[in-house]
């Protein structure tokens, strides 16, 4: 039942989007220019005057960019958004919009739209009244308000829902109202704190698509917070990976995935294998690493790697191939087969290396997927360009995913 509704809604959604592009969309189209729009300069935050929750946050955001803050729970993502929206004070550093510090600006003067995780729709007001609230605050005439409200209701494909109360809407509909309410007063910056956290997978994917579409269509700048890396990778222009109050890496999704700056990012984004070793020597951009029981392999050297130090070499499961394969390879190591898990579109193979660490290989589920018996020894192959050696950070990351 619900599937049908969703599909129908989505179909209608597309139509509305097309219609909107033809009529009112142009007014809101993307500004051009590559000047820095929003800038965090060494922003720090402490709640208890003892420890820092955000330890020197730096980022420069361009007009119209979609920036995602991604990081584990408690890493300070919400805190950054709250400082930007003005609900938490900045302990030190500056937040500037178009070069003007907004540290001391009251939240209601910042003109920043916000979508909350719980939507924060006012339960005692109808959908239309909710959307009209920011317009009324700005003293817009009633007639203009009505026009704008119906325009934005159409935009999120809720044209007939203006008289409903938030309590009478489904999760996805509420989400769309919240989105429309954050956009309706045409803020240049919209903050979203895990806006899709409460939705199921299917609805989440639909809403990801909608947010991306609206962002492209209306051209506002987005600061987005999520736990979900697939969401981050698919929606953002750039992702700031957060851990422990520090940005570990801020880069475009592909770069983050292909060229993680450190072991944390390599582990946090996507699935990864980590093989422990010792750096033999460094030759330009490459490191020669000794692996227990396998001699040496060559890997891309990450920053901070020193000859003679311990390191971990990361290889993504889909970059590993099981011999025999037709794929090109630079390395070839022996591994004992442990288990094989059927996932559907691909198959996961678990192997054990000489140092007893487990390693995962993802193989497309086609005719070439090999068969193994427990304890059989196979050979894993990969390219030098697909593995990176990171300095060992004391505690060893496990297999992730």
């Amino acid at each position, binding site marked *: 039942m619900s599937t049908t509704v969703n599909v129908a809604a989505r179909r209608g959604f597309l139509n509305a989007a097309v219609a909107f592009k033809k009529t009112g969309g142009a007014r809101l189209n993307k500004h051009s220019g590559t000047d820095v729009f929003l800038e965090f300069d060494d922003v720090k935050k402490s709640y208890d005057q003892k420890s820092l929750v955000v330890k020197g946050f730096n980022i420069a955001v361009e007009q119209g960019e979609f920036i995602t803050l991604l990081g584990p729970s408690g890493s300070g993502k919400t805190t950054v958004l709250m400082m930007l*929206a003005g609900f938490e004070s900045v302990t030190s550093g500056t937040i500037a919009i178009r070069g003007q510090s907004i540290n001391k600006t009251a*939240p209601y003067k910042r003109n920043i739209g916000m979508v909350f995780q719980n939507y924060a729709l006012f339960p005692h007001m109808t959908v239309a009244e909710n959307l009209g609230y920011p317009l009324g605050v700005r003293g817009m005439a009633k007639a203009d308000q009505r026009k704008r409200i119906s325009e934005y209701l159409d935009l999120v494909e809720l044209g007939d829902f203006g008289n409903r109360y938030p309590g009478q809407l489904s999760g996805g509909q509420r989400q769309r109202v919240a989105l429309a309410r954050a956009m309706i007063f045409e803020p240049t910056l919209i903050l979203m704190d895990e806006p899709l956290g409460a939705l199921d997978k299917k609805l989440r994917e639909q809403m990801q698509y909608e947010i991306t579409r609206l962002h492209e269509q209306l051209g506002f700048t987005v600061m987005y917070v999520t736990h979900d890396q697939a969401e981050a990778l698919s929606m953002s222009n750039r992702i700031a990976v957060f851990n422990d109050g520090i940005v570990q890496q801020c880069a475009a999704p592909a770069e983050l995935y292909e060229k993680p700056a450190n072991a944390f990012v390599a582990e946090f984004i996507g699935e990864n294998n980590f093989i422990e070793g010792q750096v033999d020597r460094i030759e330009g951009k490459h490191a020669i690493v000794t692996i227990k029981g396998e001699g040496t392999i060559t890997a891309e050297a990450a920053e901070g790697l020193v000859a003679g130090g311990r390191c971990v070499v990361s290889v993504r499961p889909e970059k590993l191939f099981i011999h025999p394969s037709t794929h090109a390879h630079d390395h070839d190591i022996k591994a004992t087969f442990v288990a094989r898990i059927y996932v559907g579109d691909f198959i996961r193979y678990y192997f054990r290396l000489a140092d007893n660490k487990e390693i995962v290989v993802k193989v497309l589920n086609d005719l070439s997927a090999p068969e193994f018996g427990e304890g059989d020894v196979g050979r894993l192959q990969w390219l030098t360009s697909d593995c990176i050696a990171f300095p060992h950070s004391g505690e060893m990351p496990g297999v992730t995913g």
Partner: protein
Amino acid sequence: MAEATTNLRTHAAKRLAPEDARNAAREVRARRLRAFLFVAPLLVFVMFAFVAPIASMLFRSAYNPTVANLVPASLVAIADWDGEGRPSDDVLGQFAIDLKRLANDRTSGQLAEEINRFLPGTSSVVKSTARTLRRVDDGTLAQTGPALLLDANDAWAEPGIWRALQEAGKVYTTSYYLTALDLEMTRDGSIQQRDTQIYLKLYGKTLWMALIITVLTLILGYPLAFHMAQSSTSRANFLMVFVLLPFWTSLLVRTTSWIALLQTNGVVNSTLIALGLTQDPFELLYTQFSTIIAMTHILLPFMVLPLYSVMRGIDPSYMRAAMSMGSRPIPAFLKIYLPMSLPGLSAGALLVFIISVGYYITPALVGGTDGQMISNIIAFHMQQSNNWELAAALGSLLLFLIIALYWLYDRFIGAGNIKLG
């Protein structure tokens, strides 16, 4: 439409067979019986402790058989009297015989009291006549009863006391309700205001005081509950102890401590004098002021608790959302927070108002004459004047009043809006 037909079809297919239907019905019955057994003890308790007393109160307010039981024969005799002049000698004679019997049974006092209610000042007439008649022997009484009666007191020659007897002799009467509303029935059956207006004024004062107390608890409680809802859990729990503290001390102790504070040479006055702010102590105790202030203190938790529990459930993101959309804090509070806290506010206000309308102990202890409320006059009629019927009528009116207020509230605000947690 297509969906409706499908529904119908599946419905038809799913209809129960007679055997299944019987089983299902039996199961529902069994479940109902079990549910009933669970609440049966409570039901019995409520019947005994709540329904029965209230029903008897309602009954008593209109049913008064005392006089009818004391002097049944006299009442039969006087039934034909036209209400003008002196009743016939038959009536007088019969009453003299009855009164003698009552005097010997030592129940003449009861009769005196009952008649007195309808014609104040006649209590002593009845009692003294009874004392006179007690010593007369039955033979003499049968012959010269009327004369003896008229000799004993001139009042027996007037129609007033006989009308009072007739009134008091009615088993079912609305006169207590009329009295409770400061009305009385004239002899021709029309209803008119009494000369002395007591009870309506008292009801008005009670409602007014309850309103003031409600507003005061609101003014004090709302910011407190708001602050508690905004603070961390540990701090809120700490403050909650202070809110609940009054609940944990005896009502009597709390009220008496107000006496200690407010009396003429109490803490407040001696402080004021010591500070040189006044020469003569203020009359603080035994006034309306002291009743209101002490009751506000006592009822404050009833306001704070529902407010707090509702406010605790209001996510801070609502206010933040309003401000992010450009609303200043105070308009955002009025437009967003206040309506969302309304269920707690109305629950608290209703609770405080209804409790204070029927409050007894505090006005009794610190109210003096000025600070008395309707419950105190009810208690007075039950304990001092022994007029249980009037007390019952006043109590019933209080009950109707509260039901009416609740109905008004439900009509305009909606009882569904009440939220205690």
